[in-house]
């Protein structure tokens, strides 16, 4: 309740945007700030004036420069939280914000609980209960949809296995203490080796969840969809058609798109991250070749691939390269320009389950593609972790279990092993929003989103 260790979270609006705000607060917030932000003028942040924007470099966990941006330090009690606090105003890219948070966690901060900044401000008398509640209502209203999604996910797919894992861990802990505390009773001995094996399994399961989050945080960032094809088949036209506006530049010139152009689109309440890519062809110049490499990367990382072919021309060697790229993936073939006289594209049936004739120019056949996208978006049940906070807690729990496993492997006594198992159970309880610990937020504060 009254902890004042350093917390950090993203506090800005939806990304990508113009500016991202990373906020941190607590005893030692300036130490964290000094480690992740280096002012251009050479002084440390903690030696600069408070309440003043300072220009400098945002550093990644490995010390590399992430961004050139602004930061501001606020000396407690004259801050939002009443503690030493800082905000970094970086460029509004998801990658930069995520790396900045990783860097802050690396430097000693921990992920903020939902509403923890406001809670701290409240607990330090910076606002009264009514004011705190008003802030809660405001934030809550804005993110209600997201909160509902998160809640549904928590109740549904992964809450049960996590709850079961927590129960198993608590069972282990209880068994150990039963044996210790009731040494007169004939209780089955605590099976350390078995417990260590269980903890290793659980750690693996948690790591799987965390990796799933890293791979495709689809609910938040959208299901990644790569639009690929050889040059000038109408990828960008199709992309713009799906985006609903002229997001990508379209010309008749082959190789117009040189970099991956991204756009979030919503279809039937689902978020997709559409990526228009450079046309894949042989013999391109250096800049275009780099763009083509990125096309391959985008196709590799995407959950869904939309392969576009020009139906008015016969298949080329480059088209066959696209076929190879899509083999074994969830991909749809779009035979574009169906408003023009068609050539024979029967070859596609071998490689694609779904072949959709479509005209990006007129929009004809577009609903076939959107229907396919919605059908093939990963089921929300598979998307396990929705928030950075939960993901960070899961990772922390996995680390605690790995530490426990390590203690067991080293041959450390079971009491130490169990301290980490208990910590993991507490962290899983926090992911589930269960009140394992009296310090875990509930009541009005549970309605806050992270970072406020």
């Amino acid at each position, binding site marked *: 309740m009254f902890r004042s260790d350093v917390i950090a979270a993203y506090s800005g609006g939806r990304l990508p945007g113009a500016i991202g705000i990373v906020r941190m607060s607590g005893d030692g917030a300036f130490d964290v700030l000094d480690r992740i932000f280096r002012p251009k003028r050479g002084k440390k942040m903690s030696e600069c004036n408070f309440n003043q924007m300072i220009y400098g470099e945002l550093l990644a966990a490995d010390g590399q420069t992430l961004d050139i941006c602004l930061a501001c330090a606020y000396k407690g009690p004259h801050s939002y939280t009443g503690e030493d606090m800082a905000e970094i105003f970086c460029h509004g890219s998801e990658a930069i914000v995520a790396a900045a948070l990783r860097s802050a966690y690396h430097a000693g901060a921990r992920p903020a609980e939902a509403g923890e900044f406001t809670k701290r401000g*409240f607990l330090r008398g910076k606002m009264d209960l009514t004011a705190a509640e008003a802030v809660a209502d405001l934030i809550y209203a804005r993110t209600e949809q997201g909160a509902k999604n998160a809640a549904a996910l928590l109740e549904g797919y992964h809450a049960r296995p996590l709850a079961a894992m927590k129960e198993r861990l608590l069972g282990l802990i209880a068994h150990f203490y039963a*044996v210790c505390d009731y040494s007169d*009773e004939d209780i089955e001995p*605590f099976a350390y080796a078995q417990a260590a094996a269980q903890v290793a399994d659980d750690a693996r399961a948690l790591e799987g969840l965390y990796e799933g989050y890293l791979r495709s945080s689809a609910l938040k960032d959208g299901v990644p969809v790569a639009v690929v094809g050889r040059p000038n088949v109408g990828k960008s036209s199709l992309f713009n058609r799906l985006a609903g506006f002229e997001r990508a530049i379209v010309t008749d010139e082959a190789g117009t798109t040189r970099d991956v152009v991204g756009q979030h689109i919503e279809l039937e309440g689902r978020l997709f991250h559409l990526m228009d890519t450079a046309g894949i062809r042989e013999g391109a110049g250096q800049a275009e070749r780099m763009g083509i490499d990125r096309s391959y990367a985008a196709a590799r990382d995407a959950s869904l691939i939309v392969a576009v072919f020009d139906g008015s021309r016969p298949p080329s060697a480059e088209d066959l390269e696209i076929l190879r790229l899509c083999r074994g993936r969830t991909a749809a073939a779009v035979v574009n320009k169906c408003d023009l006289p068609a050539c024979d594209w029967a070859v596609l049936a071998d490689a694609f389950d779904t072949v959709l004739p479509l005209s990006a120019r007129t929009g004809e056949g577009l609903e076939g593609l959107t229907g396919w996208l919605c059908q093939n978006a990963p089921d929300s049940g598979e998307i396990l972790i929705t928030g950075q906070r939960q993901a960070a807690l899961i990772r922390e729990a996995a680390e605690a279990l790995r530490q426990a496993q390590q203690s067991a492997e080293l041959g*450390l006594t079971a009491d130490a092993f169990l*301290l980490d198992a208990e910590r993991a159970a507490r962290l899983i309880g926090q992911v589930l929003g269960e009140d394992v610990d009296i310090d875990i937020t509930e*009541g009005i504060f549970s309605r806050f989103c992270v970072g406020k």
Partner: protein
Amino acid sequence: MAIEQYEIAVIGAGHAGIEAALAAARMGCRVLCLCTCLDAVGNMPCNPSVGGTAKGQLVREIDALGGEMARAADAACIQFRMLNRGKGPAVYSPRAQVDRMAYRAYMKSALEHCPGLTLMQGEAAAVETDAQGAVSAVRLASGLRFPVSAVVLATGTYLCSRTFAGEVSTHAGPDGMLPADRLSTALAELGLPLRRFKTGTPARLDGRTVDYSVMQRQEGETDGEGFAFGSGTPRAQAACYLTYTNERTHDIIRGALDRSPLFSGVIEGVGPRYCPSIEDKVVRFPEKARHQLFLEPCGLDTSEVYLQGLSTSLPEDVQIEMIHSIAGLEQAAVMRFGYAIEYDCLDPLCLQATLETKAVPGLYAAGQLCGSSGYEEAAGQGLVAGINAALRVQGREPFVLGRTDGYIGTLIDDLVTKGTNEPYRMMTSRSEYRLIARQDNADRRLMGYGRALGLISQARYDHMEEKYARARAEIERLRHTGVAPSDTLNDLLARRGTSPVRDGAALLELLRRPQIGYNDLAAVDPGRPDLPREVIEQVEIEVKYEGYIRRGMQEIEDQKRLEDRVLPDDIDYLSLGLLRTEARLKLDAVRPRTLGQAGRISGVSPADIGGLIVYLSSREDK
């Protein structure tokens, strides 16, 4: 002899009363210690042992605060063991079998020889209060009246007590002693909430009629430390034995359940779940074919043997039949039968963390009266109650131990904050700081308090400081002493099942390996100083568990912030509109001392605590 002017009366000379009386007298107060029978001072009506899991930690803490239990247990010890060895230092727990009579004799003598303390046989009947409602006198059943300004109630299981064995119920205290009824009525009249708890004890057998040859013998340790700081190796002359109940025993029990006062509904008091009677165990765990029984000697000069694990209130004829069904006990002669006992006790929510009652200033309570169970739990509370009674009389600030201080603090905090629905026993799982609050460092954690209170001598304190200074110095030496790779070293590492070193290593790094003990490294560490065992123990724990200890200390720091916020006494919780109704009622009932304590009350949410903080800061602004 004229009626002396006493400052403090302690009612009861069991494990709580003894510590209360000794502490208050040692702090310079004139103390009257009343007991209904002076032959029962320091009696152990249940098991003849001190310590055990979590209880051993309590005894070490009592010693570090200047209490007597550790020294008495060392003096009367006939077997000593460290429980949970191999499970780790967080749960190591010292335990001693003690000679009951020797223990009583030691304690009676300690009371008799304590300056400022008067031990008197007599039954306290009432606590009188002055116009302000504070304690003014204690009155005996005989009519004698002693003006005092503080009273420590340490009545154990004697208030309106009743014993049960089968259909036979007796108005009696433990071991056939007289019950104390009058005081119970008087406490109710003072507005203290009384309730009924129950506990029980097994039969004592004549050891000469037991066939030990079919049982497993359990020896004590010969290299133990004893309970008291610097006590040296305790005596260990007695053995315990292990046997088991069997299906026939269970059939006999099941066949007699209708005659058990527990199951026929005669006993209304709530018993402890963790220390069940054998009939409870048989009913609750029907799938278990046998239950463990330990035979523990009651002393060196008696053949009485305590039958641990067979606590019962079945009729005496059934007890005989049941005992004779057990391997090795076929011919056993029963010397005392088992019984259940029901008694009046307080709802501990009526107490402050100082163990002073909220209703009557100057009235303190400790031990089983507060809803706990066990000698050690009682003694720990008695010590804190006695200290606070003395501090009150002397006009000094009260003394409160927190959860982060260790087991006594956790015990009292649990009782006065959460209350209890059954006799409360200390367990290692109850302390969230168990790797920090260990039995081996109770001296470092608490002796400073003991010295400040005048209960620990400067010499004893200096001796403790020296122990830790030596441990610190040795850790530094190990950190800075490298050892080159050699056959001697790598042979040792291989023998212990750990990897060899190629480039040499600091001794500290080698000691970090769980497989390697401090003494193992002697062969490669010719320059080491000659250190006593307790210093080596500290070095090993500090080095091997360093990361865990550091994290634990951080948690303690976090908790301290909450515990540092003391709540004023005069808050009218019921009028605090910021809080939910349930929280207002609970806070009003418990009246927590600190914000941290308020947060542990069930029914008080973090949001309520937030509201409370807002209220406090607005108060401070005025």
